[in-house]
């Protein structure tokens, strides 16, 4: 092995110790593991399941309108008032929920980490101004900001939607990262980096950000269900995904209107949403215990 390869392998080896440890703790947590497998299963189902059904998400079956699940037809979870297959529509909704959940979390993660690390590391007046800005946005309920942002764009564009949702989710992330950075920047290795002439961007990218990964992962896992919830919330209110596209929120809204005569229209999407949210919450709790053993 060359010296260079050794040098590259060493810090990673040290890091693997921590991650292997965390992974072991996570695996011992039954609730978190069950939750993780369920999430994987639902994700798989959402992305390949629809191809097994003969129906598409917006095709109208004139002979089978509002049929309950398990009828003598190939609509496995029944159809809605317009004869559209609920199995395919719900899975399409899950797809959108998962995509928006992940992408919005990614957006909020990038903004939050960059913002928090910069504010915490620069400190002083800049920190004050930056965090004051966060405080102000914090004082409004999230959903207000999302609703204002969603009016900014053409309705129904889900990519704009996830940007809008992600753009409010970073506030807590920024606070967490800033707190971590404040305590990190007094550590000796930062001083050493400074002494060897590393610039501010270098210190942030190379020394601060990698050291806040643990809390960031925990919070990110807990952010995903929040983002999924926001999207469903907006779609439920009619501000999110528009017809004929389906999202869990809009399906629940349709189901709630039809629940007197077609209760499955409410129960099917609600079941998926609740399962997803509960699983992500359990997984997040498990990750917190695994990555932050002090907190027990």
């Amino acid at each position, binding site marked *: 092995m060359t010296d260079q390869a050794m040098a590259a392998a060493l810090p990673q080896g040290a890091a693997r110790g921590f991650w292997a440890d965390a992974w072991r703790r996570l695996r011992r947590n039954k609730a978190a593991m069950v939750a993780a497998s369920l999430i994987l299963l639902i994700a798989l189902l959402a992305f390949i399941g629809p191809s097994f059904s003969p129906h598409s998400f917006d095709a109208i079956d004139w002979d089978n309108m509002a049929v309950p699940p398990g009828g003598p037809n190939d609509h496995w979870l029944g159809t809605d008032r317009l004869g559209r297959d609920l199995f395919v529509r719900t899975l399409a909704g899950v797809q959108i929920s998962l995509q928006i959940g992940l992408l919005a979390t990614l957006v909020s993660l990038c903004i939050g980490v960059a913002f928090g690390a910069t504010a915490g590391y620069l400190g002083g007046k800049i920190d004050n101004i930056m965090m004051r800005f966060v405080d102000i946005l914090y004082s*409004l309920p999230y959903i207000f900001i999302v609703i204002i942002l969603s*009016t900014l764009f053409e*309705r129904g564009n889900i990519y704009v939607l996830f940007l809008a949702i992600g753009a409010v989710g970073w506030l807590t992330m920024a606070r967490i990262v800033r707190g971590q950075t404040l305590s990190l920047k007094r550590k000796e290795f930062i001083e050493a980096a400074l002494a060897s002439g590393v610039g501010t961007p270098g210190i942030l990218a190379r020394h601060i950000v990698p050291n806040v990964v643990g809390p960031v992962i925990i919070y990110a896992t807990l952010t995903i269900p929040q983002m999924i919830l926001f999207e469903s919330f907006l779609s439920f209110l009619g501000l999110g995904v528009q017809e004929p596209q389906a999202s869990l929120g809009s399906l629940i809204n349709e189901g*709630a209107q039809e629940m007197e005569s077609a209760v499955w229209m409410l129960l099917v999407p609600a079941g998926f949403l609740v399962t997803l949210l509960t699983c992500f919450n359990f997984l997040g709790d498990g990750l917190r215990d695994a990555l932050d053993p002090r907190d027990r």
Partner: protein
Amino acid sequence: MLSYALRRIAGVIPTLFIIITLSFFVIRIAPGGPFDDEQTLPPEIKANLEAAYGLDKPLLEQYGRYLAGLVEGDFGPSFKFKDFSVTELIAQGLPVSLMLGLSAVLLALLVGIPLGTLAALRQNSPTDYGIMSVAVLGIALPGFVTGPLFALVFGLHLRWFPVAGWEAGELRYLVLPVVTLALPVIAYIARLTRGSLLEVLRTNHVRTARAKGLPERRVILKHALRPALLPVVSYLGPATAFVITGSLVVETVFGLPGSGRYLVQGAINRDYTLVMGMIVVYGSLTLTLNLIADLLYGWLDPRVRYD
């Protein structure tokens, strides 16, 4: 304390001002206007309409006018609900929303604290696990799922409560919406109470209280629960924000004539003044309630000292 309180109260006004300014300009940059949907409108008439509402003026002038109106409590006319001013619309709906929100927070405190206390006192027993599992579910379940489900079970099947509608003074119309709204808050308060009570129970002053032979009841209620409830007090600020947000959904689900739905309808219709009015009213509401929760916390916790 007094100077701290005064400083905090003074801090609310610039925050509110920044919120108003930001949302005013963000909403106005948005493409599309309140009269775009009325496609049959000839351009001349549309221009006249816009002139009548002052929308043809430069943006800065509109902003100045809006602020001047706000100072006098005038939120401007609604663009969609044509014969109403925004002030009238909000004055109609707000009492319903406030009643809904306050009842929900009150219910959450009355149910959440005893549940959390019970779970903490029976730590690691089936009771504890039962309460905490329900709490996890209560936090994970959004109101737009629990609301329709409650309506289905308690309204349609058991016929205990009306599914939708509102008659002033009729409490039974309030039951399902309030329970729906309160459920996640109950769950959160139960978890908070349990966690902090468990910590307090291990502290020295509780041991001292027990050692000097006080009855267990008194130890819990007087010595342990009081400091343990501090996190609950500081959660009251976020809780009200949550309840305000939740009322948007609950009012939609149960068809209540509250003001929350105006925010949604306003956003859909691009009814600028209605959305702005809702943001001003709900924004100042959350700011004030957060402030009260903070001050209450400082007043209750003798360790908190401000300079």
